[in-house]
């Protein structure tokens, strides 16, 4: 199915539409994102990201008319 992946990296943000199984595991999603960003396929995010850039990120999954995965840094603070 087509899944819209929203990726945030160091204040930059971009969307990537990909056909994958919605039950795919988190590590696979992170790898897909890393490859897509490096290939320049995610407008809004610089291609120059380090290896395993998203290793400590969290993935939120939203199921609606358009399935959406959000790949984001942890947000522990309301401060």
């Amino acid at each position: 199915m087509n899944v819209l992946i929203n990726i945030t990296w160091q204040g930059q943000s971009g969307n990537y539409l990909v056909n994958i199984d919605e039950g795919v595991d988190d590590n696979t999603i992170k790898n897909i994102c890393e490859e897509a960003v490096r290939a320049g396929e995610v407008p809004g995010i610089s291609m120059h990201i380090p290896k395993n850039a998203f290793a400590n990120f969290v993935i939120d999954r939203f199921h609606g008319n358009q399935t959406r995965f959000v790949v984001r840094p942890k947000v522990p603070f309301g401060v």
Partner: protein
Amino acid sequence: MKILFCGGGALGSHALFLARDLEHELAVIDFDRVETKNLASQWFVKQMVGKNKATALKTQLLNFYEVKLQDYTVKLTTLNADAILGAADLVVECFDNAESRRVVQNYARAKQKPCVHGGLAANGEFGVVRWDEHFTIDEEGAPGQATCEGRGFLPLILRVSSSLVASLQFYLSDKRQVNWNVSQRNAESF
């Protein structure tokens, strides 16, 4: 409707500032005190340094805008959750630690209480607004980890706070539960 803000720090204080004209009863819980360093990133004036944050917010809203705010000056625990969270119709959670967030989330889920959360990344690059169904509690990092307490984070803090209050307005209007991703460059709702 009574709206309870859990946490009166960077997000909670600014969200209350922005929510002051909602025609609903407002309350806040925070046991912490205002420190000088908080003036850089939280909605407090210097005269409030040393006061309890909930009481300081009550004083500021009353003095500046004649808006009433109920202040709970205690720490939220499982022991007082029923008395405090149970009295609210809608919960806005902006705590700064996973333990307190869990108290709110567990209670909200057990009692089916509408609850919206706000959170910031440690380095101030990203923030979220999530209705509870979609909220993942992220643990804090190691002690000494960077937080958004210093200078330079206000634009993102205010973006997240205003997105939080916008979500409140949508919910109060027609029960829509709008989530947000907020980065330094943009804010996206869905």
